[in-house]
């Protein structure tokens, strides 16, 4: 169990990690992620929060700063949020072996659970069609509407800092919802426009400095 002393958290975390072999660290990463992803519902942010609980608060292997850095990298790179963060945490603590172990741990529970459910679902189509079951799914999806909106609203302040951001966000929303453009093209277009805008800003700033 955890030692109760709280002095010198960084020294302690470093000491604990130094005393372990890479394979031992990879093993702990694997099992921690198995536990987290087989219990935590709701995907990305929920899994990041649980990992924080495990590696920062409980084991003290990572600091809050590491977690902030992890969130930046995780959100910058495309991919499933939870898997990105698992790879980052694994790499930070146990190198390549750690990254692979954490990723495997994050993925295996889903594979097993979903295959079981999918296998059952194809045999109980009649049950799925019952009005009460359909109603329960409608209720669930309605709840998810609220959850996704809450996520978007929490992101709002971090993202919407300039008129440019409002234009890009508005265009991608309307482009997808109304005109059904492919999301991939919308994202690529936004990145292109972003780099162009940033280059323009940089050139203007340089011009200003020269005058």
């Amino acid at each position: 169990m955890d030692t109760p002393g709280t002095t010198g958290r960084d020294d302690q975390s470093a000491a604990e990690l130094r005393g372990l072999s890479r394979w031992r660290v990879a093993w702990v990463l694997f099992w921690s992620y198995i536990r987290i992803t087989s219990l935590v519902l709701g995907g990305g942010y929920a899994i990041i929060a649980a990992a924080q609980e495990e590696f920062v608060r409980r084991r003290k292997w990572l600091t809050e700063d590491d977690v902030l850095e992890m969130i930046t990298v995780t959100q910058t790179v495309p991919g499933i949020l939870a898997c990105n963060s698992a790879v980052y945490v694994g790499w930070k603590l146990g190198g390549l072996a750690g990254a692979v172990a954490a990723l495997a741990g994050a993925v295996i529970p889903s594979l097993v659970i979903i295959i079981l459910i999918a296998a059952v679902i194809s045999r109980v189509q009649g049950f799925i069609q019952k009005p009460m079951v359909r109603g329960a799914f409608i209720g669930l999806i309605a709840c998810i509407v609220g959850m996704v909106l809450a996520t978007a609203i929490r992101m709002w302040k971090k993202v919407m800092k300039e008129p440019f951001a409002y234009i890009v966000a508005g265009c991608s929303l309307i482009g997808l919802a109304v005109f059904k453009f492919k999301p991939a093209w919308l994202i690529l277009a936004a990145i292109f426009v972003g780099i162009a805008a940033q280059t323009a800003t940089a050139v203007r700033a340089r011009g200003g400095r020269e005058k």
Partner: protein
Amino acid sequence: MNLAALYLVFFKFGLLCFGGGYILIPLLQSELVEGRGVLAAQEFADLVSVAQVTPGPIGINTATYVGFTQHGVFGAVLATLGIVTPTLVLVLLAAKLLKRYHSSVPIQGFLRGMRPASLGLIFAAALIFAEMSVFRGAIPWLKPAEWLAFLRGVRIPALLIAAGTLAVLLKTKVSFLYLLLISAALGAFLCR
């Protein structure tokens, strides 16, 4: 869809889902439901609810489910490998590059465009979920004549569930696990 196409399509999704699994929902809808027609609309709705109420990353749940519907257990493993392959390579690259070049112009521009676009797409994902629950079918944006009839079809209990969830999540620290269970129970009795 054959095995190679399955792996490649999920590899592509892995490269394209910026900002996490929510964006996978519109991607899947345009590519697999409307584009290739390998998933029926009903299958897609089942998939979304199963992926969300099952623990684990939503994107992995989705990939596994779609892979399973196409090629059984082997398809499930293959689709999942497809979606995590880019992750493994890109995160390790990004962790090193981002640290070194964070203040450079291209990286700043990349972030400047990518962040608001993914926020817009997350709002669009909320609309797609709403079309499967609060509304009865797709919103007729470009047909003003149908707007009134469409609004009459709104499921009021589902609308209240969505609004209630949003309010509780923003104002309290209640775990969404309870909200999902309560919503399913309410939906079973109130939503038709």
